[in-house]
């Protein structure tokens, strides 16, 4: 799963990772992990991130079939 979080932060007056994290209830480290593609957030958090930027969820997150996502469970 890829995402546009870093680009959208830049377009939102260079919003910091800490600021975005505070608004969606995540730590700065998790926002960094999402941007680097090391962590796929829950649906709830994905919606909240999209809401902060005033976008739809599929404008922020992109899923490609056959990706190497694996569940934590």
């Amino acid at each position, binding site marked *: 799963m890829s995402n546009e979080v870093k680009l959208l932060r830049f377009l939102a007056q260079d919003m910091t990772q800490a600021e975005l994290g505070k608004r969606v209830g995540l*730590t700065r480290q998790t926002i960094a992990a999402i941007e680097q593609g090391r962590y*796929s957030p829950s649906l709830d958090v994905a919606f909240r991130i999209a809401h902060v930027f005033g976008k739809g969820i599929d404008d922020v997150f992109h899923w490609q079939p056959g990706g190497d996502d694996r*569940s934590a469970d």
Partner: protein
Amino acid sequence: MSSLEKRALLALWSMCPVYCVYFVIQIGLPYLQPTMLERIGCLAVVASIHAMAYVVGLLVIKRHEAGEPLLEDERDRAIDGRATRTAYFVMLTGLIVVGMVMPFNNNGWKLVNSALLFIVLAETVRYALILIGYRSPRLAH
């Protein structure tokens, strides 16, 4: 570095060296013929050093985290949950070995030290998996 990652690293650093020394001493102790009081004293010293190192480290971490708005989120809980599930099976194995198998052939301090060894092993596995979880390439919620 996230809060949970710092605590896991602290727990490993405060626990592993002192208990390694303790178990090495325990291997050598039978040759020294220690009394019960000396054995209890040895365990008390090791547990105290572990506790002191952990508490001091925790205070330092808490001081550095004083201004942080959020210390834990869903990613931390997912990593912690996965590590704890694996460590649970180590603990379960220890319980079977120490509580159901060893009592037929062993007693006293051998049981105590084996139980302690499995507790330390389970904790080590948990904290090591937490550290690995933060460095794994991908983790989906």
